[in-house]
């Protein structure tokens, strides 16, 4: 099936079997391999992208459901000159990543979290990150990164 949508600000078109998940369309057809697959039960959140401005686990959505949608992946977060989004910069500043595998999903969730909860406390941030699993960092520096990113996004 033909799916036409906007990915990272550009028109994209993929021809995929109807049972193709959005994450596989992004990874295998558009070679946007920054979005990762960490589980098969929609638990880990490594595949989180933005669809029409909302954080979505792209393993829990068919590619065809993205017809006409605006999709943003981790590759679309930095500006064209390579300057990182304030949340990406905060993750680097706070050492909010180690192996990097959960990181794209974590950043995409964090940006959504801060848009919808600009004043979330540390405890609330921890609760709102429930949908993303990290095995390396122990979350402490991810939480710090989200706090720093939250401030940076508010002042941007």
């Amino acid at each position, binding site marked *: 099936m033909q799916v036409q949508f906007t990915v990272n600000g550009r028109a994209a078109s993929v021809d995929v079997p109807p049972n193709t998940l959005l994450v596989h369309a992004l990874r295998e057809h558009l*070679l946007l391999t920054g979005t990762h697959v960490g589980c098969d039960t929609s638990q880990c959140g490594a595949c989180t992208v933005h669809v029409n401005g909302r954080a979505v686990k792209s393993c829990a959505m068919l590619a065809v459901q993205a017809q006409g949608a605006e999709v943003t992946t981790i590759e679309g977060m930095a500006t064209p000159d390579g300057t990182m989004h304030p949340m990406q910069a905060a993750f680097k500043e706070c050492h909010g990543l180690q192996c990097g595998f959960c990181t794209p999903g974590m950043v995409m969730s964090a940006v959504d979290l801060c848009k919808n909860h600009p004043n979330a406390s540390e405890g609330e941030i921890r609760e709102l990150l429930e949908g993303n699993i990290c095995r390396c960092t122990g979350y402490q520096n991810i939480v710090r990164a989200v706090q720093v990113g939250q401030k940076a996004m508010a002042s941007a």
Partner: protein
Amino acid sequence: MGASDFSKLPHIGESLKRKEDYRFLTGAGQYTDDVVLAAQSHAVFVRSPHAHAKINSINVEAAKAAPGVLGVFTGADVAADNINGLPCGWLITSTDGQPMKEPPHPILAQGKVRYVGDHVAIVVALTQQQARDAAELVEVDYDVLPAVVSVADAAAGTVAGAGLHDAAPDNHCYKWAIGDKGAVEAAFANAAHVTKLDLVNNRLIPNAMEPRAAIGSYSRANDEYTLYVSNQNPHVERLLMTAFVMGLPEHKVRVIAPDVGGGFGSKIFLYAEDVCLTWAAKKLNRNIKWVADRSESFVSDAHGRDHVSHAEMAMDKDGKFLAMRVHTDANMGAYLSTFASAVPTILYATLLAGQYTTPQIYVEVDAWFTNTAPVDAYRGAGRPEATYLLERLVSRCGWEMGLGQDEIRKRNFITSWPYQTPVALQYDVGDYHACMTQAQELADVAGFAARKAASEAKGLKRGIGYSSYIEACGIAPSNIAGALGARAGLFECGEVRVHPTGSVTVFTGSHSHGQGHETTFAQVVAARLGIPVENVDIVHGDTGRVPFGMGTYGSRSISVGGAAIMKALDKIEAKAKKIAAHLMEASDADIDFSGGEFTVRGTDKKIPFGQVALTAYVPHNYPLDKLEPGLNETAFYDPTNFTFPAGTYICEVEVDPATGSTRVDKFTAVDDFGTIINPMIVEGQVHGGLVQGIGQALMENCVYDRETGQLLTGSFMDYAMPRADDFPEFKLGHVCTPCTHNPLGTKGCGEAGAIGSPPAVINAVLDALRPLGVKEFDMPASPHRVWEAIQSAKA
């Protein structure tokens, strides 16, 4: 250069931001599944649905005829090509002098399957979907056999007909012991008090976030294989696969471990899938990719822990430890994985002295085969099991002797070094009292009584738990490890290549899968050479680029891999000084090098490092009669001893006795890692270790059905993975006694958190529940289990 001079170099001890982060943060990381080779095909493995069964027949005809299928292979094809089984890298000798039982570990089942997930066939097709569909068509006729699942059942021998291997009909792999049994018994006979403890170290599933993945590739042009694989030690992978399994010449195989999404031990090992893909790539003349589903990882990755132990401590009337004896039954799973045999022996029993002066220790370990996934090293590997047992026992000693958890420890701490333990290790240096003091201050132990009262007022129980751990990192030296049964060397290799314009590429045998080597190692090189860290790149994870390497495990990277780089830098510096001496017309002996400049002692002559580098490659004004051109040095470093990180962890929990809900309210970790190069990265390692250790103590638990051997915790829906809201903010502190025998003074920090934290949590839970009569408790402290413990104490 020695450790003392090294630690004074500029930027050592600075929290430099990581060089590798930009690619990970912008989606440019290259994990194995991100690699796409030409005309890549896809593999799916047919796995056993039974824990134990005889294979009567396998019919692959329908699968072979399915759309897109390129090949289907079974154990018969493997046998026909004389592919050996997977080797075990450590030979343990039993107390009767016999070698451990090493039954074959075939890459595809030979007549029998021995755990749910055991590999039976590989199906290769043009697309992954076609391979999946075809795998469904492979018909296997099984006769299901009785399964032995728990290590206790294996040890008791109560399941009839559950002998897994002809080589070990009683499922016994080995009986191993260390220590002076007679001396221990004599000490027990004279003890004022003996404290006893039975405990279970619960089985865990490592769950690195990147599932295992590999791509097998073969080139007819030069008869060379390439294996991309999510792995922690590509040279070891290559050595085991070529020399032991496939009988291939090593130089014809290149193993690339690109960005690897976490390992925690589970990606040390040579797995059947890696060999199958390499072998099938030539048979089909195709690039073949396989990526594990998470469910597949759950059943087929090597698991961790799974010990059942009994321990006893003999004390004098003042609580001074006189002797300890321990018996442990260890679950090996269905086959011996790469380092499985070393985990409950060399990496476990030798750590049971802990931080204490216990003069006599005797440990006996029985290892058993069961119908479960192989068990091998997982973050800490043996040392968490040792620490959990010892630190649980020590807290109980304190309670039984009427001493505080801190006091019983302080009375028994080792206070002078080097210290020879009764279980083989010799600790080089430490300061255990300093760690304890700092931990108690940071944890505000003085305020505990008030916090406990506040909890009580809310109807909650609060407890405090201590754990003073020690670990041994960077297994070494190779010759002693060899005498103990290691079938590999335990050195590391580093190559420093200075380019003509003065930038540097370092090739290291260590492998980074989250540890930040690209930053820490670059920091070491930049500090030594006095050049910007941006001018140093670290290359790892490719046998085609790195001369050799033993890889990353056992918190060895900085202390062994970093030390190899230091030795290569010593050679670079020595040669560069000769070039500088020539350029400045001075004697070699008069040249000093610091801050990136060569100077002639007693003069104002100086030239920068970059000029020497250029001269090495444009040797016009150069002592060609005495010195080769170029500035490129390789070193191998074999440590003379382990390193011994140690620390004290203090945990406070709050338990709701009505529901059993247990919350870690405070957690303090004070570690002595020796010299710290990048504190930000080191603290990140501790955070991660703590969450895996506290995760084991509070929620993680691998459960197989005891009769059928079905994995009941086979997905993230069933296996409780720690999440952000399960933890408070951790408080960390550091004590520094530099390692005395490596050139950096470092000790390693990757596993400490996972080693030290589980007993701190459970001691805190017991401290909270002891007033309710709860004296025994095994991990994990899930609400249901805590509630049950409270109810049974009432009964």
